[in-house]
């Protein structure tokens, strides 16, 4: 329940940005409680404390030094990725700002800043919901916030075949399930790589309970 509350709070905070993934988080937790599946609960979001040395120009000194420092920190850090922690979604608070050190010659001051932030990092084996951005004969690409996911046609169920045309798609032989651009799919991550600005994932939908969850053409 604690997890639940936290994710709801997150939902309020960053609704606009990662609504979909946060809903995933909440939903998968509900599911997990129903099936007593504690081990598998999605934990892509983390609230952690990070530290960074901020260089501040002397013109920002004065009454608003702290505000300036924090806004610069947000500008610098939010939306970036680190291989270790993943994508920094938002800074939620400042733990402490250390003593500034004046750099020789430039007048810049370096402050060690400890801050709390929400990071997003997908892990292998996790289930994720994503929006399909491109479908082609190799498979399809999907996006979930900053995450780029590729699902190769090896990892799409064998009964789904590629259909070229104006709207390329993967369709089952009876036509009941269709994956095309803007479809929402639930997939499982089988590999991740975190870059400076992007997170790449390899996904699969060749498993139970994976696949299309919302078909734009049906809506």
């Amino acid at each position, binding site marked *: 329940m604690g997890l639940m509350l936290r994710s709801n709070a997150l939902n309020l905070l960053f609704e606009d940005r990662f609504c979909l993934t946060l809903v995933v988080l909440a939903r998968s937790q509900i599911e997990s409680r129903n099936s007593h599946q504690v081990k598998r609960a999605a934990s892509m979001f983390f609230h952690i404390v990070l530290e960074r040395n901020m260089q501040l120009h002397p013109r920002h000194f004065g009454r608003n030094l702290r505000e300036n420092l924090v806004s610069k920190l947000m500008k610098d850090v939010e939306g970036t990725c680190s291989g270790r922690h993943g994508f920094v979604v938002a800074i939620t608070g400042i733990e402490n700002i250390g003593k500034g050190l004046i750099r020789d010659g430039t007048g810049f001051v370096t402050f060690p800043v400890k801050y709390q932030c929400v990071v997003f990092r997908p892990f292998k084996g996790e289930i994720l919901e994503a929006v399909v951005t491109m479908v082609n004969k190799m498979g399809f690409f999907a996006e979930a916030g900053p995450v780029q996911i590729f699902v190769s046609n090896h990892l799409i169920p064998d009964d789904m075949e590629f259909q070229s045309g104006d709207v390329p798609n993967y369709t089952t032989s009876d036509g009941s399930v269709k994956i095309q651009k803007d479809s929402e799919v639930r997939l499982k991550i089988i590999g*991740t790589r975190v870059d400076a600005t992007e997170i790449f994932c390899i996904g699969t939908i060749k498993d139970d309970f994976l696949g299309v969850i919302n078909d734009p053409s049906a809506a």
Partner: protein
Amino acid sequence: MNGKNSLSPSVSRIQPDDPPSLPREFPHPQSRRFHSSSAARPPPCTVHPPPAAPPPPFAPPHPGESTVYLSPLRCVSPSATNDSRKPIISSVFISTTNGLFDACATTRRNPTDSRPDLRSFEFSAADSSISASNPLRLLAASSSSQLIRSIRIKMSLATNSPAHSSSSDDFAAFLDVALDSHSSDSSPYEKAEHDNNAESERIKRRKVEKLENSEEDILYGAEEKSLEVLSKQQLCSHPGSFGNMCIICGQRLDEESGVTFGYIHRGLRLNNDEINRLRNIDMKNLLQHKKLILVLDLDHTLLNSTQLGHLTPEEEYLRSQTDSLEDVTKGSLFLLNSVHTMTKLRPFVHTFLKEASQLFEMYIYTMGERAYAFEMAKLLDPKREYFSAKVISRDDGTQKHQKGLDVVLGQESAVLILDDTENAWTKHKENLILMERYHFFASSCHQFGFNCKSLSELKSDESETDGALATILKVLKQVHSIFFNELSDDLVDRDVRQVLKTVRSKVLEGCKVVFSRVFPTKFQADNHHLWKMVEQLGGTCSTELDRSVTHMVSTDAGTEKSRWALKEEKFLVHPRWIEASNYFWKRQAEENFPVEQTKKQ
């Protein structure tokens, strides 16, 4: 996952009346979910019945040893008689179709306690010395499709209880049944249960539980990275990568191999085998839809661009005549500040693309930069109907200053290329339809060494109805219809290059051409490009003058040969006649290409 799916039904049958206090009645909460689903869904992998008598691929088994050969397509159990008093050795050979994983498992059974001790299973791979104290470890290390069989083997062993069977014949039979039946089929286990007395049943149950535990550890130890890495190294061929991860197993790949497909998505690479596989699949798909592939060049073929700085004073008037970017389908002259260019679309291009898209899957392939290529694609295809993710730019090619079909996911025998530069396609000249260059802007004319006034300066343009694109569209339609309607051989064996060759050879059919003052002296005549062009167009060339000659190609009407042609009433044409016929795919009217007498003569 598949393994769990197939295992769970039988597990729940073996322990239907287990007290709830028993730990791990269900090995994992998820398995219950899978269990409930497995009834409705067919098992993810079915085992085919074994063929009648395939020869075992291994050395004959030792006496007193039962050997079971397992591979995804068959299960053979050479019967071996056994005395239950002797120690029984059961061996399981597992081989997979790809041959990557050949392992042999052996278990020894004590004659007094003839339950096979699975813990003592020894696995050794045929190629290397992979062994594990726990067999399940190794089994789990195989891919999911093999997992099923692996687990079935194990289940069969588990039910091979003393009261029921002591000979390895039964053991083998169990394997057969287990493999033949689907995962929902529980006959061997039920049978075993009925036959057994309560005592052995309890022992067995414990056994199964034990198995369960160890297996669960392995299965849910999917996170156990070393294991996973081991399995994937052995089983995944890494057909391609996305962000340096294998597209099938997700494993990180360090060495960069294969061809980059940056134009589809950044970070996507595919190996040649995968490309071929995709091409073959695609080919079937295309032929089904009666489509071929068309690769289009941008500059001088579909449009003409100039940098804003290169506009001549005479062209400045164009700035006020540019069309709105709001609805690009209506205009043809655009000012693109983002890439600092002014672009003129070739007349007829919208109709051309629309009609060609019915017959072809189209790619753009340009030597321009990616940003430029995307801007142009937006102009040509605002709705992204034709070229979505099929815009190849200079950055995507595999060779410098060359265009290649290796980045095009289409069988070369089905690709047509439309380009104005023959040299860019040295490897694929047979696929190429050469276009007459479209020079609208003065800078473009100068670039190619023409000193005449450009179309923009003359305030004119190519004809909409019989310009180059309209002509080529007719040729494309013709090639397409011959390919699909007139060829008699199998659709897959047809080659668009042959069709193109045939169509081309009809252009100057019946013409016999003699050249005069066209080739430099001492030049090997039949090496000249005009000579070759005439031959490609179906005409014949000659150096001899005789009655059969139909055309005299000359740059000067005053030469001896030219005068002979006039006297004999043969066509006297300029070399441009050949080029024009080549570009328009039609024998051009000879009177439009007169030869003038040079004063000097």
